[in-house]
């Protein structure tokens, strides 16, 4: 779809990308699976915006079904590293790995729209390798480590214990935004201005 809009100044009219224009106002979008390219784009933009001004907030809109856990952790770590406060807003859907980005926003600034859904479960594998058993063991250990990392982050963001979080998210849990506020994954539901 065309995402170019016309911008005009004293030199004349010229096309600008909508996302580019929004990112000038420190508004970023994660509206895709967490692929390598999406994650690196977001991380680069976060760094740039933080370098420009580390006092003003950066807004992150999230509508993602998750993706690679490593990419989610990369974005999460960068969000914790930079000084600018980060407002996260869930629009539509945040699932599994994308939830740690949503919950990892600055405390008090984690929002969701009224009809947004949030789903959390333990890590699921979307790949497999053909190998011998010792290698399979290593793969299992790695996945369990990643799962523990994710649960650790969820526990930290919700203020619950690791044991509690692991128990709650043993099977897939679907929440609407009000339930997510209750679980402390987000802080408040965005109010309609109308």
């Amino acid at each position, binding site marked *: 779809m065309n995402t170019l809009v016309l911008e005009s100044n004293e030199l004349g009219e010229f096309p600008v990308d909508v996302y580019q224009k929004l990112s000038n106002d420190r508004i970023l979008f994660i509206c895709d699976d967490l692929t390598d390219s999406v994650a690196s784009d977001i991380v680069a933009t976060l760094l740039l915006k933080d370098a420009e001004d580390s006092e003003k907030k950066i807004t992150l809109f999230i509508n993602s079904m998750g993706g690679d856990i490593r990419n989610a952790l990369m974005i999460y770590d960068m969000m914790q590293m930079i000084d600018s406060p980060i407002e996260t807003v869930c629009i539509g859907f945040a699932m599994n790995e994308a939830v740690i980005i949503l919950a990892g926003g600055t405390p008090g600034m984690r929002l969701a729209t009224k009809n947004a859904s949030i789903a959390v*479960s*333990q*890590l*699921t*594998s*979307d*790949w*497999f*390798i*053909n*190998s*011998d*058993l*010792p*290698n*399979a*063991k290593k*793969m*299992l250990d790695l*996945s*369990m480590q990643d*799962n523990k990392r994710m649960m650790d982050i969820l526990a930290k963001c919700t203020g619950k214990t690791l044991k509690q979080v692991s128990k709650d998210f*043993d099977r897939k849990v679907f929440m609407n935004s009000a339930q997510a506020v209750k679980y402390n994954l987000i802080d408040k539901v965005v109010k309609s201005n109308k």
Partner: protein
Amino acid sequence: MKYSNHEHDHENIRPILTGYADTYVKLAKHRVIVVAENVSANMAAELSALLLYFDNEDHESVIEMYLHSNGGATSGLSNIYDVMQMISAPIKTVCVGKCYSAAAVLLAAGTKGERYAMKNSSIMIHGIQVGFPLPGHDITSSKNYYEFLKEHNDNIIKILAHHTGHPLEKVKEDCNQDIWMNAKQALEYGLIDHIVE
């Protein structure tokens, strides 16, 4: 269109065998089985049916199994192995060409003193090979699946250790990677008893 043809009725009484099927039927008369395919559930059913049939015919004389196989599924392997151990007729196994993975276990599982390999044949043993983890499943089921696979692997190691006479720990250590052997090395390892010169 005719639904019955009296001229061709004799075909139903005496089936015409084509290709090599004739040879295998004649070999079966002498209690010889030629295993020249990958180990699978289907093949395991056929092979165990043959073994049970020959055993039922005669408990005393030797059944000969000629193996030339890449190996295959563990489910098929455990099926055949259990039948081989169950029947009372002695089983002579001969490796012709290649016996890899599951086929090597079948070779070693023959009656002690009746396990042969052709002079230029090659043999390979290893632990089970797996596709891991199952896509779309969560960590808990991956963990369960791993335990299940480990049990299968331990079972195969136990069988190999039993038939080669090596201690369990040694075989377990060896089977972490593929071991490729010629007939002479297989004899030294205890997988076979004789080399056919």
